[in-house]
């Protein structure tokens, strides 16, 4: 069952001269209940902006230009006793609630979204290690989150739950009375995970959950996220630039570039049946620990700035396979399987299927073979297209 459905979402940042940075542009994907979904991409590709927009935590100059964020859950005041949105709410056009009970998070105002944060969707921020308050006991910070979002809970119950949560992520319950500086780096990260789980959310957003951590601790935190998912059945949206971390924890993922989703689908499809020039280039450019003889090839050029971007594919300037069509418009998401079986590009109708934004999706075999050649990725080749 779909938990979050992102529909043609565009997010911009206002900058001077009445221009705008198109940080996320026409992005669609969906997250199922109980799955781990990854947004992977280089810095500035829009992955963090995308994630922050879900809980309306964009910076002050950021705004949702268009699109919807349909979430399977609704505000407490719109619920009936079974937790479903009431009939009159669904039928009333003033409320952003759909026939199937999904609520458009992008249409909620500031106070309304606060009821969604923590209770339905919790976020583990980037550099979570520094997100604990140094002057409050760690346990009290978790207790506070519980009491704020579940006012009917008593202080003693909340305290009990905080200790239980810490224990579940592998921290001795007694440490609830410690301050953040008494925790090691890995323990802080675990505590932040415990805090995010405080109100038993349906969706956990983890923004670069392991980036500042050493590799052995990273290993443990990845295991912890897997365990949490198994135990609570929570869906996880992971944002990372690290492709190998993604390869390990995601069920499905989307590769972002220049504010667009270039390719999305099941993890295995992305890695084994790669269907987009950018993903192919990315795969060429990072080393793996298991291979002894490897030749890395980088993608020439640099990512676009996204300030009032031109028409045409965002990856065109760096793509060795660009043709004329690529200059006129950014390609829609094509269905990879149908392109491979029928040899014809057809727009994908299912957000969950393997999709690729490339005008040449009907020539995949050729792209894959050529992408393996080192000469393909030289600046000369790209200029001479």
């Amino acid at each position: 069952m779909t938990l979050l459905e992102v529909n043609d979402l565009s997010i911009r940042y206002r900058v001077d001269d009445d221009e705008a940075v198109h940080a996320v542009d026409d992005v669609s994907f969906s997250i199922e209940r109980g799955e781990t979904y990854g947004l992977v991409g280089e810095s500035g590709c829009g992955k963090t902006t995308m994630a922050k927009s879900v809980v309306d935590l964009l910076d002050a100059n950021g705004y949702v230009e268009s699109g919807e964020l349909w979430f399977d859950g609704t505000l407490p005041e719109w619920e009936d006793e079974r937790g479903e949105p009431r009939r009159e709410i669904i039928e009333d056009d003033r409320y952003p609630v759909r026939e199937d009970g999904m609520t458009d998070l992008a249409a909620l105002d500031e106070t309304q979204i606060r009821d969604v944060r923590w209770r339905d969707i919790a976020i583990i921020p980037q550099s979570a290690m520094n997100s604990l308050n140094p002057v409050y006991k760690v346990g009290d910070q978790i207790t506070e989150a519980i009491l704020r979002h579940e006012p009917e809970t008593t202080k003693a119950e909340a305290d009990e739950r905080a200790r239980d949560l810490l224990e579940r992520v592998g921290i001795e319950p007694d440490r609830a009375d410690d301050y953040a500086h008494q925790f090691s780096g890995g323990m802080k990260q675990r505590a932040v995970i415990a805090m995010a789980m405080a109100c038993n959310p349906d969706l956990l957003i983890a923004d670069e959950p392991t980036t500042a951590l050493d590799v052995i601790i990273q290993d443990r935190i990845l295991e912890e996220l897997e365990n949490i998912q198994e135990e609570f059945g929570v869906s996880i949206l992971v944002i990372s630039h690290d492709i190998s971390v993604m390869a390990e924890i995601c069920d499905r993922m989307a590769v972002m570039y220049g504010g667009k989703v270039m390719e999305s689908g099941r993890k295995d499809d992305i890695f084994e049946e790669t269907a987009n020039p950018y993903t192919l280039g990315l795969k060429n450019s990072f080393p793996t620990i298991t291979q002894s003889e490897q030749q890395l090839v980088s993608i020439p050029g640099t990512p676009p700035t996204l300030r009032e971007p031109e028409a045409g594919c965002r990856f065109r300037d760096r793509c060795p396979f660009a043709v004329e069509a690529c200059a006129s418009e950014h390609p829609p998401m094509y269905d990879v399987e149908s392109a491979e079986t029928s040899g014809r590009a057809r727009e994908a109708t299912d957000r969950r299927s393997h999709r690729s934004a490339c005008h040449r999706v009907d020539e995949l075999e050729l792209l894959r073979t050529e992408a393996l050649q080192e000469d393909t990725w030289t600046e000369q080749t790209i200029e001479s297209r």
Partner: protein
Amino acid sequence: MDRTDDREPLVEVENVSKLFDMSQGVVDTVLGRDPNPVRAVDDVSFTIERGDVVGIAGESGCGKTTLGKLLVQLYEPTEGSIRFDGTDVTSMTTAQEREFRQRVQMIFQDPFESLNPRMTVYDTVAEPLKLNDIGEGYDDRRERVRDVLNDVGLAPAEVYLDSFPDELSGGERQRVAIARALVVDPDFVVADEPVSMLDVSIRAGVLNLMKRLQDEYDLTYLFISHDLSLIRYMCDRAGIMYLGNMVEQGRTDELVEDPKHPYTEALFDAVPDVELGDERRRANATGEVPSPRNPPSGCRYHPRCAHIIPPDGWTGSQEAFRRAFQFKLKVRRGELGPGSVDEGVADDPEELVAHGLTLDVPDEYQSRTEVETGGHRVDLSAVDLPPDARQVLLDAAQSIFDGDVESAAAALDERFTTVCESDRPAPRPADGRDVACHLYDGGGPGATDSRVGAPTDD
């Protein structure tokens, strides 16, 4: 690349240590407190052959950057000697030092901070030429700068010469930093995490550039990185550091494929990999890196080690000893108390022992009872402990309930001893590399066992 006899060492590091924060406050002096310095690099020895790319890997705080800075004389070693091309770098004449400063260069981690924002690319790259008095006047220097910029892929150089760093992308900046290092035609370059600030698609270009320039400029590299896949890609040989010690060094391929030191093994197991996906093994190590200000005695890694060596005459299993040793560490750190066990059994020593014997490791290394209880307790009957050791643990648990943690710790210290805690292992040759681990001391069973899991039972 093979080490052959005709190749000569370029850099020889012998028993080098670097201690920080030796100074004391007035209060400490008055009270007669001993200074407690951080041993950032502790008794490290290794040799870099001419033409090699040597990697130094380890977690943050292991001393790898300090080691790099020692080699380029940004730090003076507190103890030990460093020889560059036969000359001791700590006692050079001014003329020798001038030559050294030209022949040895460093590339820093962050190209957004290592370039002066008010200097153009030309000024930045020409500065080492001026300082080293290379080149005849402006035209010659400009020519040299132009050549090196072309070499590092900033072509045509004319476009870049008058740019400021803020006009360049991260990849271009790092290329400028590389050009600045290479313009004086050095022999030895220390690169400290040269690509960690760059995006993935840019990284490979800079790495390949460094490889190509190694041939063109006939360079020897020391490549410092926390990223083991990069070390594998770049380096012929590698050293693994942990808390200031070099725990293992040898050919990179051999280190990766058959790690000898338990820390190396854990480190490589922890690296996620696209090829392996979720099939890979996790790292079998407990806890986190302790503070370098107060490092563990003996082998620095012993409190986390999966293969800690039981004492002579230990009749139980190695795993049971590891558990008992962790129990001892927990008592010493004050982590075990009446509050550690559930309320209903708060005075039962067996419960405390069952809780204290748990290991803080990934699920795949835990016992079934541990997995079922979320790592809360073990099944005591399944732990292969000698009867007297079990009694020591139970007595210690009773002492803890009685509020006498000190005598509990003392009794545990006496029973659960290990060479790993008492003696510092010296690096020893094992299968073509140097390993600092007691498992490879002498001809014991551990020394020949390639998968170091087997406990020594002699």
